[in-house]
């Protein structure tokens, strides 16, 4: 505990320095977000003349309107809104299905152990850490064969498959500490496999469900590699659209529109983080395996 921290009781000057350093770091960490936000409310003219750190002299919502509805990405000039909805179409089923599979897997791997359960878990766990470059080539071919290339459906499949490892890890570690006695007692009462899961384990799983949903949501929403590899054009997710907008726009660079589009891409995960940071952190920590 911090009570034992050797510098916990120090003079006023030391503490002032301490707070100053921490505040300085906080400013450095907030700076890019601040610059992104203020730039997105400025006119291009002001960006070229004014200071990056200054607040907008004349606030304007036009960059946001343009980013959402009329900025040119590739040949089409409809803004990022279509891609934003693509991301939602990908995220919702991918998170729910991979989460459900993970919950069942975790349940079986802890409460219905069989010979080789450790190997199964090990294989699933390792799949979390593979560099996805190793599956890009065959996946592109398989999606082509399944007629899922360049579709949001294809990306849903990809995210489910490569999400199972993490969701299984979360639920397995959570159920490992769930008392076996309760399961055994229910079994003696004649409760079956699904009854035990839905009546006994699931109601107690709210925290890990939240952790899993947040983790998967953030990962899938922020994905770029799968999106850029398997979905071009109309079916691309928001991250791919943002990158295309920012890095391949010809002519005058509309920094304010770029920043507004970046904010559009960032807002969903930021909101989740602000509302449920505790669960986000728990996911991160379990993601680094200590669980």
């Amino acid at each position, binding site marked *: 505990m911090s009570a034992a921290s*050797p510098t916990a009781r120090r003079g006023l000057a030391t503490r002032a320095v301490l707070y100053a350093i921490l505040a300085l770091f906080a400013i450095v960490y907030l700076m*890019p977000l601040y610059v992104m936000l203020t730039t997105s409310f400025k006119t291009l003219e002001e960006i070229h003349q004014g200071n990056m750190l200054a607040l907008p002299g004349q606030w304007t919502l036009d960059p946001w309107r343009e980013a959402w509805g009329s900025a040119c990405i590739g040949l089409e000039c409809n803004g990022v809104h279509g891609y934003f909805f693509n991301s939602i179409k990908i995220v919702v089923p991918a998170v729910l299905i991979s989460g459900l599979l993970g919950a069942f897997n975790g349940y079986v791997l802890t409460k219905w152990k069989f010979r080789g359960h450790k190997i199964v878990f090990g294989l699933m766990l390792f799949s979390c850490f593979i560099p996805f470059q190793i599956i890009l080539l065959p996946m592109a071919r398989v999606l082509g064969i399944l007629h899922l290339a360049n579709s949001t459906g294809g990306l849903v499949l990809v995210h489910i498959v490569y999400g199972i490892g993490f969701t299984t890890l979360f639920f397995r570690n959570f159920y490992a500490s769930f008392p076996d006695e309760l399961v055994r007692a229910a079994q003696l009462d004649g409760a079956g496999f699904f009854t035990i899961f839905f009546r006994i384990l699931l109601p107690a799983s709210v925290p890990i469900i939240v952790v899993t949903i947040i983790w998967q949501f953030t990962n899938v929403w922020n994905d770029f590699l799968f999106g850029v590899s398997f979905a071009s054009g109309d079916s691309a997710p928001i991250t791919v659209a943002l990158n295309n907008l920012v890095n391949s726009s010809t002519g005058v660079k509309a920094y304010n529109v770029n920043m507004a589009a970046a904010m559009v891409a960032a807002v969903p995960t930021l909101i989740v983080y602000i509302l449920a940071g505790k669960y986000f952190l728990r996911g991160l920590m379990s993601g680094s395996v200590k669980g």
Partner: protein
Amino acid sequence: MSNASPERDGGARERLQRWLPKLVLSPSCVLVLFFVYGFIAWTSYISFSDSGMMPDYTWVGLHQWSRLWTSWTWGIALHNIWVFGLLYIVSCIVLGLILAILLDQRIRAEGVLRTIYLYPMALSFIVTGTAWQWFLNPGLGLEKTMHDLGWQSFSFNWLIDSNMAIYTVVIAAVWQATGFVMAMFLAGLRGIDGEMIKAAQIDGAPAWKIYARIIIPQLRPVFLSAVVVLAHLAIKSFDLIVAMTGGGPGNATAVPATFMYSYAFSRNEMGIAAASAVFMLAVIAALIIPYLYSELREPRS
């Protein structure tokens, strides 16, 4: 079911109950076996085949591997990932540890500060890259700001300087991940037994000595976790480089992940792309498997 005699019904149900767990697990197993391990096998085979634009299953031995190893761009990519990885891991750990120690001094606004340090982790690398590309923009970003503030000679054009561009990616990547490393260290600090520290305090040991001799050595498992997690993130890094520099100027910020992508999807050299992917997997496996093994072997009870 209800028509069957109670006895037969019971037997079938019992058998079903016995198989149900494995039945429920099997879709995931099939998916993982096919899409992960089957694909790894396929890509590995392709790296020894004559594949170019289309898969060609003719065995050519180490041909693609030697083409990979003599590729100029691959040399740059390997060099960059060393520089990037090393700086990224060391900076994140040093900064993360410092922040964790500072935050562990009964700071009043700890919750708020932690939230601020950690929020970049919730952002997409593409957003981070876009933001930093703008922030470090040679014409309008930091450089101009410094000029406006009166520092006329200030110059910062790393983003378009082939020799320096990789360092801008390091800056953005460190900004994004430090909060996470800090959280890991903070959790480690909170788990340290206070007895030894109190004893040392009574002996009159200065604070820095207590940290150097007692506290930091006890954080060894956190260091290990942090290095493994950061190294594996570094090897996989792709998005941030694409968003910030596009691998440029020229090839200056190419890394294995961007190399693989461009050989697979723009240059249509499947064989070389597969070889580079297998190489990445091998490095990560060498790092992750011993780590997972030691983590999972620890008794849970």
